[in-house]
């Protein structure tokens, strides 16, 4: 029953399911570290999913598609930058606005552009590492993934390095805790937070683009299906640490792939229950680890110089 193909399928599925969460989660983590709770992440992912797919179809290039997805996510995050960071409006209200706006906009654009043709994208380029990829099971999974998986892992590592080893990372971490200290030290809080929110848009857009370009191969309205919110939860559970975030995303990925495997081996459970398992796993993690959750003190609080 548990043969090589099944295990391979689970591993491949786990990684495929975790990549969009890792990408979006790392963006959210940076944004939260800077003190901006980016509730609109799901909307940024949707924008990235549509924008990425549209660019990929127009240019016939997956890579340009990813760049388009990042740009579309960044565009959506500009709403947060201007309304919340610059003008100090409520982050939760604006975030929900971004989500609803993106849902409406992408559904409308999808109907306008792809309603008749329903184009699809084939299998994306994989990085085959000679020799290593030939190892049974593990080799096929670990060393035969789409390039984007490696880009994602690199992004996690780079985010960790930037947050702990660079002046801007230090400024981001300090801004989420005590923005007035950052201001007093002569660093512009608005600039730090704007960059952090923009990076949430870029990474959210990439995560969304991964869904449409790699996971599904086409764009479907509302295709993110709550992954943006899952990424927000993971970023909070990870206590601001990129590696923990990657681990959490993998856990979700395995739960997702595990349920697929259950269906494949013919376990008699209603599909609705099977499909909710990954969310139940993350919920359980939230209950077990949520006590130790780390949230920056100035999270979701607008900063206006001289006011407290």
């Amino acid at each position, binding site marked *: 029953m548990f043969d090589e193909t099944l295990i391979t399928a689970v591993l491949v599925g786990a990684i495929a399911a975790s990549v969009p969460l890792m990408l979006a989660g790392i963006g959210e983590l940076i944004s939260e570290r800077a003190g901006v709770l980016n509730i609109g992440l799901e909307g940024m992912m949707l924008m990235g999913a549509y924008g990425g797919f549209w660019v990929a179809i127009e240019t016939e290039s997956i890579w340009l598609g990813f760049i388009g997805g990042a740009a579309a996510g960044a565009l959506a995050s500009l709403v947060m930058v201007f309304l919340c960071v610059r003008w100090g409006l409520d982050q939760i209200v604006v975030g929900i606005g971004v989500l609803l706006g993106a849902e409406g906009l992408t559904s409308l654009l999808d109907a306008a552009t792809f309603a008749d043709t329903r184009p699809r994208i084939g299998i994306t380029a994989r990085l085959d590492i000679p020799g290593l990829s030939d190892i049974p099971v593990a080799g096929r999974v670990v060393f035969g993934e789409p390039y984007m998986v490696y880009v994602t892992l690199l992004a996690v590592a780079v985010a960790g390095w930037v947050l702990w*080893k*660079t*002046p*801007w990372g*230090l*400024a981001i*971490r*300090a801004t989420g*805790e*005590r923005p*007035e*200290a*950052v*201001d*007093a*030290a*002569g*660093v*512009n809080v608005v600039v730090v937070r704007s960059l952090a929110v923009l990076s949430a848009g870029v990474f959210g857009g990439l995560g969304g683009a991964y869904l449409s370009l790699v996971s599904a191969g086409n764009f479907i309205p509302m295709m993110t299906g709550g992954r943006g919110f899952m990424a927000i939860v993971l970023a909070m559970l990870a206590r601001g640490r990129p590696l923990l975030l990657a681990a959490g995303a993998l856990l979700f990925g395995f739960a997702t792939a595990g349920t697929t495997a259950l269906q494949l081996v013919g376990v008699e459970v209603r599909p609705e229950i099977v499909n909710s398992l990954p969310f139940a796993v993350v919920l359980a993690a939230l209950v077990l680890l949520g006590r130790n959750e780390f949230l920056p*003190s100035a999270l979701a609080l607008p900063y206006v*110089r*001289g006011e*407290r």
Partner: protein
Amino acid sequence: MDAESAGSVKDSIAPLIEITGITKRFPGVLANDDISLSIEKGEVHCLLGENGAGKSTLISILSGMTRPDAGTILIEGTETEINSPRQALDLGIGTVYQHATLVPTLTVLENLILGNTKGATLDESEGRRRLDELASILGTDVDPNAVAGDLALDEQQVIEIIKALWKGKTALILDEPTAMLAPAGVAELGKMFQRLKAGGLAIVFITHMLHEAIEMGDRVTVLRQGRVAGSIGPDELRSEQSERLRDRIVEIMFGSEATELGDVAELHVDVLEDHPDQGSLEKATSDAGGRSIGAPILKLDNVSLEASPASHGLHNINLTIAEGEILGIAGVGGNGQAELAEVLAGQRRVDSGQIHLLHDGNLQRIDRLGVHARGQMGLRYVSDDRRGEATVGSMSVSINLVLKKIGDAPFWRWHIMQAGEIQRNAESAIENFDIRTPSADTNISKLSGGNIQKVILARETMSNPRIVIHNKPTHGLDVRTMLMVRERIRQMAAEGVSAVVISNHLEELLDLCDRFAVLSKGRVIGIVENGPDAERHIGDLMVGGTVS
């Protein structure tokens, strides 16, 4: 000759910072009204004034946090605009703000290099070098890898100063740096000022303590209602006796009311001055102790709280407070004072032990009762966390005055708010406690710290208190408000209302209390009666207590 040489120096070089005609208006307040003064190199310039006199506004203008509506700033003779904290730092003006600006989750070193955004990676070795250099100038020892939030308040203060000096190579501005410091810390700060002055730095320093201004300042400027009310130059500060200087300053600060305040103001200036051991203790204690003290009203038996990483806890506290008695809780801050206050107020449950309160003629056990029930039995708590747990900033003064009586008659009837009653209650509190507020409907966050303290005091002491716990009741208040608060505590004691006063200022306790309990690491290590030797006894206990 002295005066002449000083004069010639001034003629030849423009002052380091010269401000003229600075005016700043906030909605409803003229915070700074045509202020002009100059700050010289190698001088400590003290700014004095009541809460709300405009000192902090002036400082935030110099540090680039606030822009003035009118006026000019000349730096070494050149007109300069300071539009952002970054610009102030680039001009060499470093500031220690009244509210802590260290990021508690970062290390000391990370806090210090926070402002340096040049370069791809953090330059920790350069940071360490500069930290060593500044620490040696200040004569202190600093662990660069300690997490800022774990440090004691006075250690954090030193880091704040180092942080300000990091870029502040020409001027250092400090907004009430001594408010949270024990006397030893203040003395240490004075030594640091001497070293920095010798290096040619200009220091601007806000304080409420007249003796600090007289001892540490080379020049004193007094602000009153946003204007310069007067100043005392270096020659006079050096030559005059401190007693005369104090009278001058009090006169400038309070004008016509000076005579009536003069006597009492002495009390809080005298003790640390010149002869810190004896001082004018007899005078300070003269009106304490003379009260008639009645039966026990509050009794603590073996009250204990478990220790935790953040707290010493409480261990077998046994105390009895009599009717009309004022008991002082002395000791170095952080030795269980906050825990004791919360346990007495009913905000924290004791882990073991009992608390009894006199009610309906006999001592009743209250350690299982909540804040509301204890309040109704006459036990009240004046918290030190004025803008935190004690008030709701976004609500009006009148609502804050009934915050602990939500649902109670006459302010609520059949669960409906009685706006008229609440308004009447507020009006009488505003009048009786001299609360300076535009109206009873003003949000309490718009008031100065002193006026918020008056609101809290009014709320806790109106309507039949029996015993009031005061946690740092005058912390950060100006002289006038401080005296008013102390007078209220004394007056209530004369009427038979007991008080427990927790304070970091020994001088305040000596002024008010009949007896003192000295806390160390969550234990009462001694009980001292007020009297001529009290200060020495308490001092011995505090020093001995912290060493063991």
